[in-house]
């Protein structure tokens, strides 16, 4: 198993809080199952906290933040407030599952919204199935992809970025083999032919149409924009 992880740049953006909610959710799901990335994330957070401290605004110069009166008022507001324990907003404890070919596959809690917004399974070609996620309002096309054993996605490259998170089973491409929890990130320079020997359920996110580079699939390319359903406003 090769393993696939978000690179340092992506982890840093995640640590900073500057990723959009779709990519952030994918990274969060990966980090929950990857000790190395979880540790790297802690290191990133510590380093960003140090950067915060490097801000050398004079410590006693409160003018940009709070005047003296505001400072005292604010201090009292916090210290005199009745600190009630924060209500825990739970989304419900029942795990969300994706059902495919007689299996019920549990989806990580952070991704449950995508499962809830997903439509029905639709056959793409041969051993490949797609369950479109709609109503998310992001500038991406988001799908659950199921490759049956022996299934493949025709050779393609990407006009933008492609994120694939493995939820169950495993798939491979020219660069490696990926199992549950792996997050495979590909961009415009990568050309690949994903396939699965044993079957694989993934969540796939693309920000631009795929460009097919071999076989009959190439005939689809002029129409690829029609097949690409982003929800950018």
């Amino acid at each position, binding site marked *: 198993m090769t393993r696939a992880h978000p690179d340092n740049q992506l982890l840093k953006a995640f*640590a*900073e*809080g*500057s990723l*959009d*909610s*779709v990519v*952030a*959710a994918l990274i*969060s799901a990966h980090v*929950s199952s990857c000790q190395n990335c979880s540790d790297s994330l*802690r290191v990133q*957070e*510590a380093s*960003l*906290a*140090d950067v*915060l*401290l*490097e*801000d*050398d*605004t004079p*410590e*006693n*110069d*409160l003018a*940009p*933040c*709070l005047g003296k009166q505001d*400072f005292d008022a*604010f*201090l009292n*507001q*916090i*210290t005199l*407030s009745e*600190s009630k324990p*924060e209500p825990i*907003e739970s*989304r419900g404890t029942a795990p969300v599952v994706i059902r495919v070919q007689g299996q019920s596959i549990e989806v990580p*809690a*952070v991704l449950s*919204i*995508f499962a809830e917004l997903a439509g029905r399974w639709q056959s793409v070609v041969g051993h490949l199935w797609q369950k479109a996620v709609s109503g*998310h*309002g*992001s500038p991406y096309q988001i799908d659950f992809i199921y490759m049956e054993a022996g299934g493949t996605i025709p050779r393609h490259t990407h006009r933008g970025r492609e994120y694939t998170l493995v939820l169950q089973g495993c798939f491979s491409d020219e660069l490696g083999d990926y199992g549950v929890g792996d997050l495979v990130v590909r961009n415009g320079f990568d050309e690949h032919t994903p396939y699965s020997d044993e079957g694989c359920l993934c969540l796939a996110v693309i920000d631009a149409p795929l460009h097919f580079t071999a076989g009959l699939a190439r005939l689809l390319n002029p129409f690829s924009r029609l097949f690409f359903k982003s929800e950018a406003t």
Partner: protein
Amino acid sequence: MFASTAICMTDTTLESSNDDSPIETTAERVRLCVVRIAAEKKKSALAELMELMANRILHFAIKHVGDESLAREIVQDTLMAVWTKAASFDQDKAKATTWIFTIARNLCYDQGRKKLSRPQLVSAEDVYQDVYYQDSSGSQTSDSELDKEKILLLIEELSVEQRQVVNLVCIQDYSHADTANILQLPLGTVKSRLRLALAKLALIMKDKGFGYD
């Protein structure tokens, strides 16, 4: 009992930082503020924390949400969260400054999205796990828990000053140095009060026949 007595008497968390860089000094001051808030909800500790961190958090928040009044709210919410949650923060898991950064970061993540009307498919709470808090299950052995309960009963018989140091060092597990800071006493005073308190406790236990020799 003697095992935990021995631990009380040695300062196992010697925080002598040889690194005098301004960042390390500020980080240490922030840590002590958080410790004092956690132990005693000291208003002066919160005031000092505000002086140290408010502007820094503000600049970070402005960079991320782009709106100064929203950024100020984030500063206030961050400091409020520190005030209410300091007692559950686990010092062993991260620096206090890192913890505070993550609180501000989570608020920016949620508020920034709202402000820009970006889709809020997942909240900061879903995306970022709370890893810097103490486990509520606790990692204490049942032996040391029993010892602590016994100590709680026994310290009723000590003077107020002795009770204070035993409580902070032996029950709440603060280092001697942090205890000195919390009580605003010289380190030597803390150590000698602790020594006398424990000697008195030993006598009490012998009298009460707890079975310790």
